[in-house]
């Protein structure tokens, strides 16, 4: 999924496909590259689960899978929160022990 998002054109496709109004042909009109090249980008995004092709009437539009995109981002955010909390506990542990065995504990920060 992350590799799929590493490309600027693909990120742009994902952005445009949020409103799910265009098919691959219309999307291709936005980029200075061949239809086949855009089709390839769309295929990469589709394999990564970031977009789906959806039939609306007789048209086929490209739609962004918002949930999949958020899962990736939220994972890293969640792990950041987890480690921040751990580091706070480490810090408290160090401060506690330092207070216990130093005479006249000095706060060296600020």
């Amino acid at each position, binding site marked *: 999924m*992350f590799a799929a998002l590493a490309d600027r054109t693909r990120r742009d496709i994902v952005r445009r496909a*949020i409103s799910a109004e265009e098919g691959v042909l219309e999307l291709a009109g936005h980029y200075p590259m061949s239809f086949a090249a855009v089709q390839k980008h769309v295929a990469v995004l589709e394999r990564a689960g970031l977009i789906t092709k959806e039939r609306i009437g007789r048209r086929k539009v490209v739609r962004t899978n918002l949930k999949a995109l*958020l899962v990736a981002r939220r994972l890293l955010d969640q792990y950041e929160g987890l480690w921040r909390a751990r580091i706070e506990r480490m810090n408290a542990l*160090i401060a506690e*022990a*330092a207070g216990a065995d130093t005479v006249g504990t000095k706060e060296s920060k600020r």
Partner: protein
Amino acid sequence: MTVTAVRKDPQRRTLTVEAEFDAPVERVWQLWADPRQLERWWGPPAYPATFTKHDLAPGGRVEYHMTGPAGDQPHGHWDILEVEPPRRILLHDACGTADGIPNPENTIRVEIEEVAPGRTRMSIETVFPSTAAMEQALANGTDVGLSQAVSQIEAILAEETIQR
């Protein structure tokens, strides 16, 4: 703030957190080397950790479980790949459920260095093996409402490059 830097690289599925402590390297090392100290910080307050095995040596294994408020006990273990006291650990961490179903392993690299006398920097880098592993790790609790999703999406896509 103790945390001095956070780097997220979604393309490499990597999270790096750097922190500085007002303590010498040896003291910071003990946070990892002493299982009784590990128990004080590894699990959140609602899920205290118990380390039942702690062989912090190359090829060694560290085993732990956490006890939740409802008595649930997620189990996990580390496989120690490299150790260089008091400044470096490379390990695979796999946290699973009480019935022993493991999640795929994350690689965690810990580096500890002195930045000034009595001041120590610790860097913790976590690398996830695959997107699937990341998604699995987050399988619970990610049911975001779609309206909320849309408001966040522009910010995500606006990030041209992830800082490294």
